[in-house]
Every structure is written in C-alpha cells, then in structure tokens.
C-alpha cells in the first residue's frame, strides 16, 4: 500500500509539504538576471561599457592629467605614431591622453546629470502619482511647463552667462572647469519631466493593486507605503530610463561642446574635442575619429544595456 503522504481528505487544514514548491527559491532579482543573460546584445553592451570605463578611469594610471593638457606646439597635428598613438591635436596635445581624461568628464556628466534627473523626477512623479487629485494636477502642469523650455537654448544662454563666473572644481584629484557643473544641472533640470511622467504612471498603476490596500488596512503609514511598497515595484522603468538618460546626457554634452558652448578648455571632453576637429575633418581625421568613436561606442553600449534591462525586468514575472 503506498503512503500517499496526503492527509485524509476530510475537514481540516490540508497540509502543504515544503517540497510542494517544485522550483528552487529564486528571487525576482535572480529571475531578472537569468533573462538578462540571454540577451546577447545587452551582454556585449555591458562588456564594452565596462571596458570603456576602465579605459577612461584606469587610464589615469598611465597618463597624468598634466600630460593630457601638455601643449607641444612642435608636435601639432601629427598623425598617429608610436609616441602619440591617437595623434596630436591643433596645439600638440596628445589625443589619447585627452580621450582618457575627456572620457572621465563626459561619463561624469552623464552619470551626474542622470542623478539630478532621477532625484527630481522620482520625487515629483511619486508624489503626483500617489496622492492624485489637485496635487497631481498642479505637479503635472508644472512638469509640462518645464518641458516647454527649449533645452538647447537654455544651455546656450547659461553657457554664455555663467561660463566665466563659475570657478574651477576639484573632484577626484582633478581640477576642471566649473562649466561642467552648469552643464550637469541644466541637463538634469530639463530632462526630469520625462522620468516624472514615467514614475507617475507606474505609481498610478501599482497603487491600484490590492496589496497596497492591504497595507492600508493594516495601518501602514503613507510614507512607508510609498517607499517600501510602491517604489520597489516601480523600479523597473526607472532603471531603464535612468540608463538611457546617461546616454542622452553624454550625447547632449557632445552636441553643445561641439558648438563651442559647453565645457571650456583646457578641460577635455569628448564633445569639445570634436569642436576642435571641425575645420580639419579631412586633413586630420584623427582629431574627430577617436573621440567620435568613443562617444558612439559608449552611447551604443548604453542603449544595448538599456534594451536588455527593459526585456529582463518584467514587473509581472512569475515562475513558470
């Protein structure tokens, strides 16, 4: 006679054996990682990104900042050689070193602008989404007003008026132009509305779930509901959006620096290196090729990474 191990089917609480969960414990994080792993482009993007970051920050060990700014008029506009593997620019600075230190700034701008956008965007979106009603209307009208501001225009105006007056900044053992901060804040302050709308939409939808009502029925205070319940369930689009906005910020910086109105020299960024290359497009290809390649690779990698994250993070995931 086989022992069925199931309790006799009369009244009472039917037992549940621990092994009745056939799947091994897998948190949502582990499931997400699994899905991410299968996205080949995302893996490629992540690895490339990692290499670029290593290049830009690890390169500090090989070249000093002084070297990247060292003017060597005798060696101007030299094509790539053993001494200067990426060539030299219009005043004889080594391009390789400059792409390293320039990369640090470009990446820094990308990350920091994203942080500004994140803080403002998430706060506004969360409050508007959770409380609804008049507060929501007010915040959303404000958000839309900010969207109306032409970003480039603002950047140009700020660049013109503040460029001279902001002192140099010291950070991570480096000194760079204060215009970097201006750029960071302007980008952050004009792009947060996109994130705010996404966060608000997430909050509106997550708020409708019964587990939020259950938390209220239990007596959980509002701020706890927002931070412990809703926010963790809204993280997915926030992560994706934040990732992509790093790419957007890098591109934007390149764009305005190329126009000559971004970060002031001698501080290098990939973008202002392109500015210098404008007149030498054909004659000195190495001036724009290397910084351009790095920008393209970085932005592309971030986009692949973002794609992979978007596919991997599924808020409705379930085992099987």
């Amino acid at each position: 006679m086989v022992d069925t191990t199931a309790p006799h089917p009369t009244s009472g609480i039917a037992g549940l054996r621990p092994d009745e969960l056939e799947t091994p414990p897998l948190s949502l994080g582990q499931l997400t990682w699994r899905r991410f792993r299968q996205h080949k482009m995302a893996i490629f993007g992540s690895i490339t990104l990692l290499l670029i970051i290593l290049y830009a920050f690890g390169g500090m060990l090989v070249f000093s900042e002084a070297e990247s700014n060292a003017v060597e008029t005798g060696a101007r506009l030299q094509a790539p050689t053993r001494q200067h593997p990426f060539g030299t620019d219009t005043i004889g600075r080594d391009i390789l070193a400059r792409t390293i230190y320039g990369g640090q700034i470009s990446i820094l701008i990308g990350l920091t602008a994203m942080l500004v956008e994140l803080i403002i965007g998430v706060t506004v979106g969360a409050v508007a989404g959770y409380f609804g009603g008049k507060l929501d209307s007010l915040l959303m009208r404000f958000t839309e007003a900010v969207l109306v501001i032409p970003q480039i225009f603002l950047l140009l105006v700020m660049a013109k008026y503040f460029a001279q007056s902001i002192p140099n900044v010291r950070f991570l053992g480096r000194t760079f132009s204060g215009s970097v901060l201006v750029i960071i804040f302007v980008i952050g302050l004009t792009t947060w509305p996109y994130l705010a709308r996404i966060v608000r939409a997430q909050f509106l939808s997550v708020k409708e779930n019964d587990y939020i009502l259950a938390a209220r029925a239990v007596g959980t205070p509002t701020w706890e509901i927002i931070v412990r319940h809703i926010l963790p369930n809204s993280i997915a689009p926030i992560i994706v959006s934040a990732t992509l906005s790093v790419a957007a910020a890098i591109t934007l910086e390149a764009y305005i620096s190329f126009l000559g109105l971004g970060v002031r020299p001698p501080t290098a960024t990939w973008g202002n290196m392109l500015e210098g290359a404008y007149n030498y497009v054909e004659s000195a290809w190495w001036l724009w090729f290397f910084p351009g390649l790095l920008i393209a690779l970085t932005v592309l990698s971030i986009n692949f990474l973002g794609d992979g994250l978007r596919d991997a993070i599924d808020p409705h995931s379930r085992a099987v």
Partner: protein
Amino acid sequence: MADRILEVKDLRTRFHIAEGTVYAVNGISFHLEDGETIAIVGESGCGKSVTMLSILRLLPIPPAEITSGQALYLGRDLFRLSEREMEQIRGKEIAMVFQDPMTSLNPVLTIGRQIGETLRVHLGLDKEAIHQRAIGLLDQVGIPDPAHRLNDYPHQFSGGQRQRAMIAMALACLPSILIADEPTTALDVTIQAQIVELIQRLKEQLSMAVIWITHDLGVVAEMAERVLVMYAGFIVEEARVDELYEDPRHPYTMALLAALPRIDRRRDKHLRSIPGAPPNLLVAPKGCPFAPRCELAFDRCWDEMPPLFQLGPDRRAACWVDVTTGKPF
C-alpha cells in the same frame, strides 16, 4: 443517424519554455457527433483550452509543439491541412467564442465592422448584404435595436452584450461546430443564465454541435449531453451527463462533485476538500497524475497511467480501481 463530425486521436501538445517543457496535453482522444453538445470540464491547467487551440491550430509554434495526434473534421485531418485551408475552416465551419469578450473584440473597430469582416472573408457578400445580415445576427442573439448598435464600439456594450456580439460573430457563417471556451465565466450569474439559454436556443435553430469548455459543474449539468473530465492533460472520465453526476467512476470526478457546495440543500458538515494541488506540468507524466491526491491510489497508480477503460456505451474512466468496490479491477 449520429455522424462523427469531429474525431480527435491521441493528441499530445507541449510547450517549450525557458524553464523546461510543459506537458499540456498528454494523449487524448474523443469524438463529437453532429448536433451534439459536449462539455469538457476541468480546472485551470488541465489542458482543456489548449486541446481546442491545438485542434484549431491557433497555438504559436514554437513554443508550442503538437507532437502527435489527428483531428479529423468530416474525415479530413486538420493537422495535415495548409494554413490556407485552415483559414477556410476557422470561423466558417468551426467557430470559437472566448472567455473575455473585452480582449477578444478589437476595441477600435465597431461591432458592425467586426461581424462584417467574417461575412466578407468567408461568404464574400457585398456591403448591403453584409449590413442586413449583421443586423439579423445581432437580433438573433437578442441585442435590442441592432441597426444602431452596429455602429457602437465594444466598450459601449455591457459584458453580457459583448458576449452576445461575440456569439453573433461566431455564428455568422453558420458553422457546424461552435467551441465555447469558458464563455460565461466572467459574467454575472443572471447574465450567464441568459447566455446559456441563448446558446441552447441557437443550437436548436442552427443544428450545431457545441463543445463547451468550463470548470463549472453547474453549467455543465444545465446544457451538456455528454461530458469529458480532464486532469493534468489527460481525459480521466467520459460519460453521459446524467450518469456522470449520479454515478461517477473516477476518483477525481467523485472528489470534485463532493467538494461542491449546494445551493439546493441545507448545509452538511465541512466540505470535502481535495488535499494537495494539481501537479506541476513541467514534469513528464509518469503514472496517474491524480495519485498523490487520491484516496484509492495503490502501487500501480504511481507507475503506470491507466488507460481509459470502457465501462459502458459512451462511458470511460481512466482508473485502475473499480470505484464501486474500491478495489483494483
């Protein structure tokens, strides 16, 4: 006399997903006679919907895979037809109605256009004929003021009316078989009564065969002539409706009936619940899938899946045990 309009033989369907293979349908065979109403009953995950979707070849392949089986419609094996030929059959000769009319109807097209599409594609009628016929169909399914309602969108209909509209679409080309997949599960009980009555009436009028898929044993008692009970991708019992309820021969059927509360009786003690839970379909079936939850299980049940034993005309049960005695056959 009774012709077999549909005959399914040894159907097996699997799904290949990241976590492994889901053994959704594991070798089922049944038939449907012309003009007959059968019900396929089972809980979620038993494979009842997948069976129908497999037969109509509506499953995406991959991840689905129909590893074996034949589905003979009027003698032709549906699995051997080209997609073109299947399109001639779907909607025209075999029609399907689904559970949630809100997602099965296109929200941006009027009802008139959606019904019209079926008529245009299958019967090649012109605009005026389509218009008249659509009005007639909406009227037949009991939607008041059909001429005007043709221009309404799905969200302007109530749940019950949407389901009626879906039925109208399904019947537009006078199919021989109507497959209704949980058509009333999402509806209120008074609306459900209306829809059940509607389908019974239409069935008579159009001499259609109906396959009704549901988990609700109450609805089955109302409208089925013959019943198939499914569990974990197998058919475990088949019987004429009266016999199934009075004299079930499979432990699962018996347990299911015993677990039902009754509105027409005074309360008994606790409900007789079925311990445990349905099996994990990611594991290839070995032995009887109901064994872990079965009072009458013995060694053989765990090793070998019982075949469907013929216990009488139209009467089969897949169990090694004779439930009338409690002992193995």
